[in-house]
């Protein structure tokens, strides 16, 4: 080994945490973040991709076997390799799981000005015959493709307005697919204004998760997410979020940041940290946003998260920024085009739910019995691989995967510059969280 040359991953990020500690992460290898002390940092900094191990040991005055052991530790997550064959996230050869957005209804009890559903309130919910055909297609696909896991995200419109219509479907579909060796998972993508004891009990029994749209605290939320009467909905969301948490029902919130709510982001962050709920911030797509103000208020919010980490709040399990995947990494941004798509209320299958009702988009239907659901994905639209050449050489390409494929500009996420500033910050906070854990166990 002494003649071999250690090579650093070209996707390394190495940054200080405090005066004594650093971290290193290979942005192309899942869960590779490591805390380094100063002695280790010195070794890593000395690796120049040219000097053999023995010469490196001589230069740093480190015994060869100790240096070799350290380099072995680093090579476990490809921080370094002994050749230049670094792995990168790849599309798996065999599809094991599927993930579909299901548009359960065009009806909604709110009237948000920005709603992207062009067919909102034009029809009612998915009829029983369409539900039955959906189950038939799931069974057909699982049987033909040996799929072991499916997730259906029930959305709309407001899916909880359709609870009665799905109350019988969910247990039956879970049972039938379970008999085929496939687990079926459901979640509601909801405005959370409708939550009854019956829905709660059902959600617990069938382990249904909740993704809740939240635009901000109090007036920030009420400014955009109103009932048709004009009344705001925040007070109901707040109460129902706490109810779900008290019943240990998996719930997370999703906030789309726009010019209208970005000033309230720090207050919202404090609220979500205090609730100890997983939350995602994403940036509005398809419309302009004040970049300077966005960076200011995001920075304030991340400063609050940094303080909360020192109090024991679990940043890495509670916060997600846009579609970034700093830990598990990815070969593409979402399931669309590979393992998922969107099923409209009438059984139309689209690449993405933002294409519902758009006659210019390529679509299939679950009533076509010549194709299973995977055929429909494969033979449908494919935006996912349209990425810029800059992205191919970017250090963070497996973290951001060029963003949402539907809204890329010249093959890039419009927020590319912002990601380059905030991805290192996200890793900084993960490293602080790790360091605190080590300090809590007096291991450092």
């Amino acid at each position, binding site marked *: 080994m002494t003649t071999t040359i250690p090579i650093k991953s070209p996707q390394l990020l190495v940054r200080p945490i405090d005066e004594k500690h650093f971290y290193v992460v290979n942005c192309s290898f899942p*869960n590779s973040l*490591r805390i*380094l002390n100063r*002695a280790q940092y010195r*070794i890593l900094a000395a690796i120049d991709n040219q000097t053999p191990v023995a010469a490196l040991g001589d230069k740093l005055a*480190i*015994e060869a076997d*100790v240096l070799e*052991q*350290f380099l072995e*530790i680093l090579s476990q997550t490809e921080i370094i390799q002994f050749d230049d064959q670094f792995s990168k996230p790849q599309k*798996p050869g065999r599809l*094991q*799981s599927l*993930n579909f*957005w299901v548009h359960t209804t065009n009806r909604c009890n709110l009237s948000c000005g920005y709603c992207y559903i062009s067919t909102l309130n034009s029809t009612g919910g998915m009829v029983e015959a369409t539900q039955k055909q959906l189950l038939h297609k799931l069974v057909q696909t699982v049987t033909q493709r040996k799929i*072991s896991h499916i997730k259906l*995200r029930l*959305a709309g419109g407001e899916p909880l307005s359709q609870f009665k219509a799905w109350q019988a479907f969910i247990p039956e579909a879970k049972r039938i697919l379970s008999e085929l060796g496939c*687990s079926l998972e459901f979640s*509601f*993508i909801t405005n959370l204004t409708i939550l009854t004891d019956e829905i709660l009990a059902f959600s617990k029994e069938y382990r249904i*998760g909740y*993704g809740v749209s939240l635009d901000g605290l109090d007036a920030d939320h009420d400014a955009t997410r109103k009932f048709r009467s004009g009344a705001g909905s925040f007070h109901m969301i707040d109460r129902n979020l706490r109810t779900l*948490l*008290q019943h*240990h*029902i*998996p*719930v*997370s*919130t*999703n906030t789309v940041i726009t010019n209208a709510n970005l000033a309230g982001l720090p207050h919202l962050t404090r609220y979500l940290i*205090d*609730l*100890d709920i997983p*939350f*995602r911030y*994403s940036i509005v797509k398809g419309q302009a946003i004040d970049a300077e103000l966005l960076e200011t208020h995001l920075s304030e919010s991340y400063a609050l998260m940094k303080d909360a980490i020192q109090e024991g709040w*679990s940043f*890495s*399990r509670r*916060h*997600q920024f846009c579609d970034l995947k700093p*830990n*598990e990494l*990815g*070969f*593409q*941004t*979402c*399931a669309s085009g590979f*393992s*998922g798509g969107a099923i409209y209320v009438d059984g139309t299958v689209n690449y993405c*739910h933002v294409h519902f009702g758009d006659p210019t988009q390529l679509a299939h239907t679950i009533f076509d019995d010549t194709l299973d659901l995977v055929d429909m994905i494969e033979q449908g639209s494919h935006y996912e691989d349209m990425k810029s050449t800059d992205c191919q050489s970017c250090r963070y390409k497996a973290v951001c995967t060029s963003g949402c494929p539907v809204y890329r500009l010249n093959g890039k996420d419009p927020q590319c510059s912002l990601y380059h500033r905030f991805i290192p910050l996200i890793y900084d906070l993960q490293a602080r969280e*790790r360091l605190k*854990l*080590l300090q809590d166990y007096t*291991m*450092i």
Partner: protein
Amino acid sequence: MTAIHSNDILFDDFSILKELVGQRQLNLSSPTTDCDCIGYTVPVSDDNHDTNQVAPTAGQAD
């Protein structure tokens, strides 16, 4: 070269924490799996990944 120096060099935070808290605490997945965009996930073993989305203390919030 001192033994302490070697210990410093061979400090392995991942192995230490794997021993103390388990690998599933260290292998992180996206925190929000019910948001409007979701990536491809393969079925994972609970032994290796933390699939718990809600903190044990979350129910105490009021």
